């Protein structure tokens, strides 16, 4: 497909630890089209951040990509040289981190960080942004992130700004340059609720204005349902369900998705949700079967022994579950 910006096929990522190999990401397939907003939802430890870090090549030292392909604009990120990768990053990718405090160099002023970022970016035609325009670009970017008094902010150190301002600054930086893919890794986790709402609105408007693609990573179903076009539901390092956002939230198929949705407290009452019993998968020995099988109320014998197939239940709505596969019916 021509308008495919990012395609991840059969990605496998593990971490070396003292006790052995953590098999975290197990055969994940993700596609992002140009201008599309994609959400990746999953609970803590389901591998969301690992996927984001694999895309940008900033896995921790213990992390190892053991299989699969990550094609960014048709080029394989995993096989290219470090130099090519840094150029590609400069051209295509921007990332918003969970914690804007630790993602800004504490001894550099915002102005100098921004001029580095803008200076490292490329225009779509491969040229660099001229030095004379860097300041103007920075001021415009801060302005569009609704930050008042850009000049004062450019002259400040990160610790002189509030948490919400830092995240705004970060968004301004991420979208200051013509990059095509915005990776937002839990952009509002460390902010309080009122600021969270403002930041999400800001991301949404900026992404729409710039027509960039976005991958929003979050554990919050609310945020993902508001912000994205399409959702990948992640459990234990595997995609259990993928669909258009509306379809998935209105009509979840996978037992995990259903259990998760029923956990959302409703205003109409009904008491505290029951939650999902059991524990997260043990990544050291995840077994061959469906990783949710040990907690699944509808688990079949086959679920424990064989990996579930990806079944298209409706056009564009895929579920990785034996409950919906031919195998189970026969």
């Amino acid at each position, binding site marked *: 497909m021509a308008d495919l910006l990012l395609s991840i096929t059969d990605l496998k990522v593990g971490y070396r630890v003292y006790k052995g190999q953590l098999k975290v990401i197990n055969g994940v397939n993700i596609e992002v089209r140009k201008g599309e907003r994609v959400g990746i939802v999953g609970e803590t430890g389901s591998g969301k951040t690992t996927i984001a870090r694999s895309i940008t090549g900033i896995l921790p030292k213990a992390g190892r990509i053991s299989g699969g392909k990550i094609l960014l604009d048709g080029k394989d990120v995993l096989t290219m040289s470090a130099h090519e990768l840094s150029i590609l990053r400069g*051209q295509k990718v921007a990332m918003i981190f969970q914690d804007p405090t630790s993602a800004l160099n*504490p001894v550099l002023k915002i102005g100098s960080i921004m001029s580095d970022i803008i200076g490292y970016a490329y225009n779509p035609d491969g040229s660099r942004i001229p030095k004379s325009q860097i300041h103007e670009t920075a001021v415009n970017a801060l302005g569009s992130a609704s930050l008042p008094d850009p000049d004062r902010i450019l002259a400040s150190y990160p610790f002189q700004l509030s948490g919400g301002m830092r995240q705004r600054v970060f968004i301004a930086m991420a979208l200051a340059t013509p990059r095509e893919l915005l990776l937002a890794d839990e952009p509002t986790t460390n902010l309080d609720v009122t600021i969270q709402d403002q930041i999400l609105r800001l991301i949404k408007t900026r992404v729409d204005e710039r027509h960039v693609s976005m991958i929003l990573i979050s554990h919050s179903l609310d945020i993902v349902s508001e912000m994205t076009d399409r959702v990948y539901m992640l459990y234990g390092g595997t995609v259990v369900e993928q669909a258009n956002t509306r379809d998935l939230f209105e009509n979840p198929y996978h037992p995990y998705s259903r259990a998760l949705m029923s956990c959302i407290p409703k205003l109409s009452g009904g008491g505290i949700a029951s939650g999902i019993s059991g524990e997260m998968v043990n990544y050291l020995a995840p077994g061959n079967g469906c990783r949710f099988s040990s907690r699944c109320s509808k688990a079949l014998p086959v679920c424990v022994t064989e990996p579930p197939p990806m079944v298209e239940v409706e056009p564009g709505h895929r579920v990785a579950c034996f409950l919906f596969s031919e195998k189970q019916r026969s």
Partner: protein
Amino acid sequence: MKTFNRAMDSTGNAIYKFSRNKVSVVGFFMVLLVVVVAIFAPVLAPYPKSAGALIDFDNASKAPSLTHLFGTDIEGRDILSRVMFAFRGALVMGLGVIAMIVPLGVLVGLFAGYYYGTFIDTIIMRVTDIFVTLPALLLALAVASLGRPSLFHSMMAVAFAWWPYYARLTYSQTSSIRNETFIKASETIGAGKRHIMFAEILPNCLAPIFTKMALEIGWVILMGATLSFVGLGEQPPTAALGTMVSDGAQYLPAQWWISVFPALAIAFIVLGFNLLGDGIKNMVSTEVL
């Protein structure tokens, strides 16, 4: 000096932080005095000719008096004048060695820390470890005795023994900063190795480096004096504090002034730099005072 300025909020703030510690202001004036005296020694010294090879047996071994405040040595040279001239060598020693070892040590440490966990790191750091296991003074003595004794050779010897400590300091800083999110962030946007090492990591290492540097100039001068005490530094007749102490040692305790005043001069200069170092430490700390 762009990065240096980045490490401080503003000159005014830096001066304020420095002046909060009165003792460091005293240190600053002590160092200033030494520097001024060293520069203007030919003008300020009461007997400028005493700096070189002067023999004046009429005035030999005179006790401190109004004409010779610090007394004279066995060749009749004025000790005060000689101390003033010896400050020159001491300052060249301290500043010169620091100017050699800090860039070298920092570069090595930065490089090894950036490649933390790889064989580059292993090789560089094991070599520095070997240096560190040898007592610095012994190593410096050994190296200094290889060549013809001179001030320059003794500086090289001290530098040779001292740089690994800067490499290790920078290395430990770099290897931890390397994994901070903001480094990952700048990698994500396509920053290269050079940018990450020098523009992102280095500014974060500067505060401890400056602190160590400021606190150690005094110790470097002391080590230089030690080398010249055993005859491996500046050669006679040029005045050197260590040589003056050792020359007078055999006339102790009767003609105590020959050794004691140069020794006090060493103490003065080392103390001055150490107190100044404390002030600089406050100045570069990011703590909001």
